[in-house]
């Protein structure tokens, strides 16, 4: 038994040195709280490290938990950079005063409309709200004209979303900003009645494709990502863009920001500059994420409906209020 114990101790020590040592060594680089798609952030980190030699450690999670976590951590946050999929999470951290201003030459790489008026963070990519519908179950004239139409009793049991996800909560925050609190609360109440809740936008699309449900409110790129792979989960899916500055035509800006508490501010700023620059935006065009590129003069994947054709409503991302949205959704019984 003595040998068994010492062997065990040896094994632990060995594993410890294998696992912990590299983790400690990586402290030399920057820590990114990444709420973006893991694969996309990994590509960004890889490209950045290759060009600059600065190491990047990703901690993966979701928009909302990270933004609240950073606020709770305050000045002691281990994070250097925060990347999200949607703007409300960035607005939350910004409101807590935890972002350092983004370097001017980084801001200059992105048009005004894809960054907050405050310049405390910057858009790194964008995504469009769509109504994904089953082409066998719905004809084009049966599609909702506006996101608000889905509150109508005739839609009861016929549409789906992923209310626990930050993606959907961002859409609600746009609705809140555009139509006000009372209208949003009513719409959410109707949503609780009418809709089916799934976990994750991919799962919503899968259910739409399988004909379990007529349609669902998701972002555009799930469809394109699946089409590029096997198309197995999107064969019968059509995409409906609401356009006309409807709340349902909301384009959500994925953000990136450097924390004021960062211990490696120079490296963190460099990372953000790289992501919004040629290298980072190129990944969006050629990679598998199918999100929109937002850099000046950068093109998105040609398969996508161009960003400028979407007729998105104008919303200053600073004004998107995630806390209020969570409260309203909790009151409506969706969370």
């Amino acid at each position: 038994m003595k040998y068994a114990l010492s062997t065990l101790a040896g094994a632990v020590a060995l594993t410890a040195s294998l696992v912990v040592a590299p983790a400690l060594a990586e402290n030399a680089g920057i820590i990114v709280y990444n709420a973006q798609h893991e694969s996309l952030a990994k590509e960004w980190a890889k490209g950045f490290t290759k060009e600059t030699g600065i190491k990047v450690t990703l901690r993966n999670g979701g928009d909302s938990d990270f933004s609240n976590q950073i606020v709770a951590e305050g000045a002691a946050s281990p994070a250097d950079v925060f990347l999200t999929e949607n703007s409300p999470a960035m607005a939350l951290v910004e409101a807590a005063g935890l972002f350092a201003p983004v370097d001017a030459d980084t801001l200059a790489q992105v048009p005004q409309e894809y960054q907050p008026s405050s310049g405390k963070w910057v858009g790194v990519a964008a995504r469009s709200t769509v109504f994904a519908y089953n082409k066998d179950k719905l004809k084009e004239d049966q599609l909702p004209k506006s996101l608000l139409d889905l509150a109508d009793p005739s839609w009861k049991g016929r549409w789906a979303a992923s209310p626990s996800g930050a993606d959907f909560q961002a859409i609600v925050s746009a609705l809140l900003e555009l139509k006000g609190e009372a209208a949003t609360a009513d719409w959410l109440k109707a949503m609780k009645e009418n809709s089916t809740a799934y976990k994750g936008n991919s799962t919503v699309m899968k259910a739409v494709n399988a004909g379990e449900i007529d349609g669902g409110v998701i972002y555009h790129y799930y469809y394109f990502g699946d089409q590029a792979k096997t198309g197995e989960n999107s064969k019968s899916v059509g995409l409906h863009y609401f356009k006309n500055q409807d709340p349902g035509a909301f384009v959500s800006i994925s953000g990136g920001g450097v924390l004021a508490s960062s211990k490696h501010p120079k490296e963190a700023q460099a990372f953000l500059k790289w992501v919004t620059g040629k290298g980072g935006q190129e990944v969006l065009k050629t990679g598998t994420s199918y999100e929109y590129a937002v850099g000046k003069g950068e093109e998105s994947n040609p398969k996508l409906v161009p960003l400028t054709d979407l007729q998105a409503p104008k919303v200053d991302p600073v004004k998107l209020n995630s806390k209020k949205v969570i409260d309203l959704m909790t009151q409506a019984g969706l969370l």
Partner: protein
Amino acid sequence: MASAIHLTRPGLPAAARQSRRSASWITLAAALVSLIALLPLAFIVWTAIQTGWGTVLALIFRPRVGELLVNTILLVVVSVPVAIVLSVALAWLIERSDLPGNRLWSWLSVAPLAIPAFVHSYAWISLVPGLHGLWAGVLVSVIAYFPFLYLPIAAALRRLDPALEDAAAALGLGPWRVFARVVLPQLRLAICGGSLLVGLHLLAEYGLFVFIRFDTFTTAIVDQFQSTFNGPAANMLAAVLVACCFVLLAVEVVVRGEERYARVGSGAARQQQRVRLGHATLPCLLLPAITALLTLGVPFVTVGRWLLAGGADIWRWDEIGLALGQTLFLAIAGALLATVAAMPMAWISIRAPSPLQRLLESCNYIVGSLPGVVIALALVTITVRIALPLYQTLFTILFGYALMFLPRALVSLRASIAQAPVELERAASSLGRPPLRALWATTIRLSAPGAAAGMAMVALGITNELTATQMLAPNGTRTLAMAFWSYSGEIDYASAAPYALIMVAMSLPMTLMLYVQSKRMAGR
């Protein structure tokens, strides 16, 4: 040995004094561990007070909580009886009838434990994509957790004294009545214990129910956590979940009762006779066969299908290797910590039992029965608000694991310390070893097999733990379960498959050990 010391040294013998002193040190250590274990519970009470009654009431008494309560109660109330009936039927056929191949069936009835519950669910959802709701929840829950009932029931059936059944038959009862009035009551302890375990797992399970879109308190707490990090809503849902756990524990105590069934007097029980099934053999074979097909066939076919569909691309060895290394490290380190923490309590529960000790011990069991998500939520908030240097460190995650899995280590340690003769400890003391050295040289070494078994059980729990790891782990951590979850969340079922396979392969030896241990406890 003790009397010899008395002869040579009048008054209070030094060795006894020493050992009493060491006993009090150990008691102190045990008390400390138990108090620390109460931290999450104290935290929930503290949050409720901090939040203020108005908000607490508004957060608890709302329709959504009612929905979750109905869902959670229905799930437990329907799944547990189904699992009991299935387990009793299987165990009886395998242990008490001449069912062909019963050794094999006995194996196959325990093997589903080697498959993490969320992998079961993943297998089902990719086979029947529309699966959702309560009935799906019951189906997959029973499939994933019935071995927790099967193991103790089969062990109890093996130990039964056939004389009682013979007596009942001689008094004119038919076979069914003998079963209902003699056999079933003797299984009550096994059924109660197993049901409690299944019930607590159902309350704590996350991944399984997310796949099939069935909301329970645990899934809702995670949703809230992901929306607000550590908002009062999540903590109040956790408080209700804790209340549910207490209700289950209380129900078990009431149902279990005080009655004992045992032989009175000397002599050994006669060998049991296996019942001949005759013409019923074929239909009876269907039960274990169908069970094996649903519990093992479905996961293996689906995982296999995704592995084939994914080809060589999904074996990203750098990524898999890193996840495997981290998982192994967390599992081994967590198991060591839990075992060391359990040692003082295990020792005094055998060597110096007392009402205080029983109270302390029950603290550990209660905390161990709380869902990981509750413990994780408490530790996140405590570390971020009060002990920031510990926040998101290796220490905190291992600490969380130790709290969650301490009872597993405790149970195994107790059993093996009970078998180590106390005389050896005394002899070592009387030969001049200082108390702790004496303990190390005797009891601790003798209890090593039990410690190893307990460690394996803890490691198994850690390997398959998902929510607590996600909430507590240091930056850059990526365990097998996390990787599996992240791929399957993006419906990349193929990329998730290798992780499922590796987790099953890692769990197999520990499941084997559980199986062997249950056989040994039954005396075979």
